[in-house]
């Protein structure tokens, strides 16, 4: 449909994400929608069920700022660095509020997104053999194969209210091109009721950039497409900028202490109008090492 898909990130978050929604911000190390995460915090969304295979910095921020009441995930940490402290503080000490968790494995979360995208109510997998996870998660059950009698794990499909991803390019009709490590970007969008995609670049026609078998999400399956250059930082956008490993490491010190964390968020996220403002703000402290210079001044 030729409806207008392009919008600002502010508008998209305002109109598409509501308090109490289940929201999946995805991006498997690559193409993490950080700018959208900030905007969720700026708009003080509350009581969110956050879904994500690898909750890392963006979810550490949302959880620490009190936006989430529940987390569905399979690995929560700062990749290559260590713990995410706001996540731990919420689970270990209920700060700033209790955080209910529902925990799966990567293979399972990926299968659950696939089931959601496929219009199926559940996913089947060979999984969790000998693991204690099913004891603590009633959403992991077991069924028998009707042909062989084998015991297989099954879990409910994920169909988030809203999916949020970052991607490289979109065209004026909102068709989106994703390349490199594509993770579950396609699945989460197709599984969700609504979706927001932030992109590095708007081009005239995606067909000039995509090969026949490229990973393309047609505009008609998306709710909003927002032009946010650098929007995956400190994650990366293949072909645009590298992963900011120093920022991931710096986050450990920022988020370890509650007050340091709150002051930092106040200054750089709540105290800025948008992602461009955030970039300038942290760049002024020498904290961004990978984004193009024009985004940081």
């Amino acid at each position, binding site marked *: 449909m030729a409806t207008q898909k392009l919008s600002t990130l502010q508008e998209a978050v305002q109109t598409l994400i509501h308090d109490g929604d289940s929201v999946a911000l995805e991006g498997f190390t*690559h193409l993490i929608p950080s700018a959208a995460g900030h905007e969720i915090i700026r708009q003080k969304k509350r009581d969110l069920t956050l879904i994500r295979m690898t909750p890392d910095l963006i979810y550490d921020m949302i959880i620490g700022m009190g936006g989430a009441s529940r987390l569905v995930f399979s690995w929560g940490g700062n990749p*290559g660095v260590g713990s995410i402290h706001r996540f731990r503080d919420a*689970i270990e000490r209920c700060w700033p509020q209790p955080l209910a968790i529902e925990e799966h494995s*990567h293979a399972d979360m990926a299968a659950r997104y696939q089931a959601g995208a496929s219009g199926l109510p559940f996913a089947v997998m060979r999984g969790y053999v000998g693991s204690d996870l099913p004891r603590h998660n009633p959403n992991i059950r077991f069924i028998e194969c009707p042909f062989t009698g084998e015991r297989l794990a099954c879990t409910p499909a994920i169909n988030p209210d809203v999916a949020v991803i970052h991607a490289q390019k979109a065209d004026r009709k909102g068709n989106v091109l994703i390349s490199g490590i594509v993770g579950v970007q396609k699945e989460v969008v197709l599984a969700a009721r609504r979706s927001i995609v932030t992109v590095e670049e708007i081009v005239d026609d995606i067909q000039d950039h995509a090969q026949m078998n490229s990973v393309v999400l047609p505009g008609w399956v998306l709710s909003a497409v927002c032009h946010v250059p650098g929007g995956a930082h400190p994650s990366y956008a293949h072909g645009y900028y590298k992963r900011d490993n*120093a920022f991931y490491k710096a986050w450990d010190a920022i988020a370890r202490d509650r007050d340091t964390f709150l002051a930092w968020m106040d200054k750089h996220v709540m105290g800025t109008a948008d992602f461009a403002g955030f970039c300038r703000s942290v760049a002024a402290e020498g904290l961004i090492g990978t984004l193009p210079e024009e985004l940081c001044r």
Partner: protein
Amino acid sequence: MSYTPTELMTINAARKLSDGQVCFVGIGLPSAAANLARLTHAPEVVLIYESGTIGARPDVLPLSIGDGELAEFADTVVSVPEIFRYWLQGGRVDVGFLGAAQIDRFANINTTVIGPYASPRTRLPGAGGAPEIASSAREVWITLRQTKRSFVDRLDFITSAGFLDGGDARERSGARGAGPTAVITDLGVLAPDPVTKELVLTAVHPGIDVEQVRAATGWDLKVSSDLVVTSPPTEAELACLRDLHARTLRAHGGEAGGD
């Protein structure tokens, strides 16, 4: 030539990989070891990362499981659902190479919580890809530093199955593959007893004595009657590993990967 315990562990882990094997690689030490193998004696080893990169040939070590470096030089990059379904669950992986926070005497792995699940003393990152790697790969190798805190008698939580309660418990569980056939630490190498499946010390690194290993183990560690001492790192191995780390450090702007 002198070397660190971590270098020793990495080099011993790397030696286990044969050319042409298909290895599902965990981040950190397994990734350093697998790439060292690829850069030395096993140029045709196939490295698969859970981020969807098949046949990855990173020039520097990735800090995360999904660095661009992994995609850039891979044979192909597929989606995360596909990597777990078609490639891991599909039974195409020879070796699952895992790190761990804790293991027990039957090589079960905990990466979830220390303390009770509902009110953990320490919340660890969680399962990631490990439960299915541990039960789908033809065999599993685990590499971690050996201390009384990481080698515990009984885990608070089994995230990924080793031999469960030992004996034929793993077979009965429906897990596929041989399970953990080697645990490579900074002190030596452990392997399961063929019958009881309890981990037995089968090798110590040069300069390490058995009592040192026992002292770093949270249960009464059995020692193989055929205990051997691993060969010291060769100059070529050390040079290759150090080059790799130096390249990585430069590329990551001061952040070392794979460790």
